[in-house]
């Protein structure tokens, strides 16, 4: 895939945050990269540096093979959308969408046809004459995306588009982003905190920690084989056991001995797994006492006290244990990840 946006050895500082250092990646046309990272990791700064609102202190940003590092935002062909949709309050929905077309001197019927086409694609044609203040959050998001598409961007930068939205609206915005990908195929970079949104949308996921891009790969890679403890914690590896590996796949922990897949590392470290890395079973290798049972839509999490401390396991359907019950559990060795070092 031809890279539409290339970021090379990029560094930037902004406010009192740590800033970005030595960031390199590329995103192809029609590809969607999700940036994950804890708060203050530099995700928004990275997006704003690509967009041209934060000056890079070193490195390069190239869009469609053109170095745009020193160009102002309007000359980059990269549209940056803020966390909450920012519409022009003095313009109607149709005028908002027509804004980039006016700038490019698209006139008359061509302009109105294109506006109608974009509103239609976002399923908001009936809102054309409304003012932004009369729209709901989801509608505002759709108008914002339609307006971004009107600018025919080569790169679309979305800063936490799902933040503060209820589940219905999140689905709505995800659908709108898919429409954008389908109809215009820009290289898209999305910042989010939500693993579900990341997994549902991303072609690739990049993990940013302390201003550095620590891992980038397809969602399966990043979600199942995080390259560090911080990333594992970020992508939902909630269980950590102190462990010692022997270099041939055997790992000793406080709850007992385990065999892991492809373990060639030796020494002490941490064994981490998600809640789905283990299961309650009648003939499990390990024992624990249930301390809490949490029911969420579509899942139940059992918190239990083991010889290695507190662990959380997802429960499969069937009879649920009660707090205080003694239970046995097993761990899925292919879902365990060992990180050497303290």
């Amino acid at each position, binding site marked *: 895939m031809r890279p539409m946006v290339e970021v090379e050895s990029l560094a930037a500082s902004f406010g009192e945050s740590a800033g970005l250092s030595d960031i390199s990646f590329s995103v192809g046309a029609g590809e969607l990269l999700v940036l994950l990272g804890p708060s203050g990791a530099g995700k928004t700064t990275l997006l704003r540096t690509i967009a041209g609102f934060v000056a890079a202190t070193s490195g390069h940003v190239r869009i469609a093979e053109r170095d745009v590092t020193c160009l102002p935002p309007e000359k980059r062909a990269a549209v940056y959308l803020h966390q909450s949709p920012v519409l022009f309050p003095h313009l109607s929905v149709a005028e908002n969408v027509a804004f980039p077309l*006016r700038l490019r001197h698209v006139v008359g019927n061509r302009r109105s046809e294109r506006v109608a086409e974009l509103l239609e694609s976002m399923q908001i044609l009936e809102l054309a004459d409304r003012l932004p203040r009369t729209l709901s959050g989801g509608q505002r998001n759709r108008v914002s995306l339609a307006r971004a598409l009107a600018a025919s961007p080569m790169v679309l930068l979305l800063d936490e588009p799902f933040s503060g939205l209820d589940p219905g609206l999140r689905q709505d915005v995800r659908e709108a982003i898919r429409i954008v990908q389908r109809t215009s195929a820009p290289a898209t970079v999305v910042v989010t905190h939500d693993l579900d949104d990341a997994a549902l949308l991303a072609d690739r996921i990049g993990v940013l920690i302390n201003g550095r891009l620590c891992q980038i790969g397809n969602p399966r890679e990043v979600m199942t084989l995080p390259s560090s403890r911080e990333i594992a914690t970020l992508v939902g590896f909630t269980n950590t056991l102190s462990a010692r590996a022997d270099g041939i796949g055997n790992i000793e922990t406080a709850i007992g001995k385990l065999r892991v897949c492809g373990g060639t590392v030796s020494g002490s470290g941490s064994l981490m797994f998600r809640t789905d890395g283990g299961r309650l079973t009648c003939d499990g290798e390990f024992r624990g006492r249930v301390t809490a049972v949490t029911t969420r839509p579509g899942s139940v999490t059992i918190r239990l006290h083991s010889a290695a401390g507190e662990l959380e396991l997802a429960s499969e359907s069937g009879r649920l244990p009660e707090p205080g019950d003694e239970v046995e559990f097993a761990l899925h060795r292919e879902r365990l990840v060992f990180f050497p070092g303290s």
Partner: protein
Amino acid sequence: MRTTPIRWQSSLLLVLVLWTALPISVLVISSIGSGWFYPHLVPTSWSTAAWSELVSDRRLSRSLLTSLWLASLTGGIASIVGFEIGRRVSRTPVPLRYFALAAAFLPVAAPPLALGIGLQYFVLRAGLGGTLTGVWLAHSAVAIGYTTLYFIGVFAVFDRRVEEEARSLGASPLATLARVTLPLHRRQLAEALLLGFLVSWAQVPLTLLIGQGAVESLATSVMSYVHAGQDHLASVAGLLLALPGLVLMGVVGSSIRRFAVATV
């Protein structure tokens, strides 16, 4: 008793209304009445002669036109300059922003007489003493202070993400200003224009000092009529002087109501 606070509130409101409306009422009555001496509560006769004189008295109509020209130009320039300075100051980092604020506050805080003496030095050196241009420059110095302070407040709460969004969609800084920032501040620009207009409209000390008697505005005419004991003309000119202020009250009041409706 529960009615006591309400009675107090009504009484205080009445006092406030009388206190503010009485001077204007006196102007209205004395502009159309004559023979209004103690112990008469109202004038003994009524006439519109003073208003007719407004048209025939060339001095009064000339000073009215001078004031209109001066105040319009001052209001126009001060609103544009104040808008731009306010916009830039709001983006200036903090220590510098405080200096800019202090600079804008100076012509507002300093008494016009003191300011006039200072300005006189420069205006006379530039050969503009006793000219309309000199008076306009002096009025603008004060009016720009007011409008700058006003716009610093406006831009302190302005959501700059709107401008960023426009830039990101392809608008140059100039296009962003013309298509987004200015249209979004139409009401504030109109209010600043009126503010600048009023500052110039009611200005006496600066007009006297810089105009050196050669430039006569409506406000300085009122002073002359009062000194000359021409009460009717003083009242008519005084009413004209009060008119823009009353219009401003109406404009601000209606825009506040519109804003309240828009944000409900």
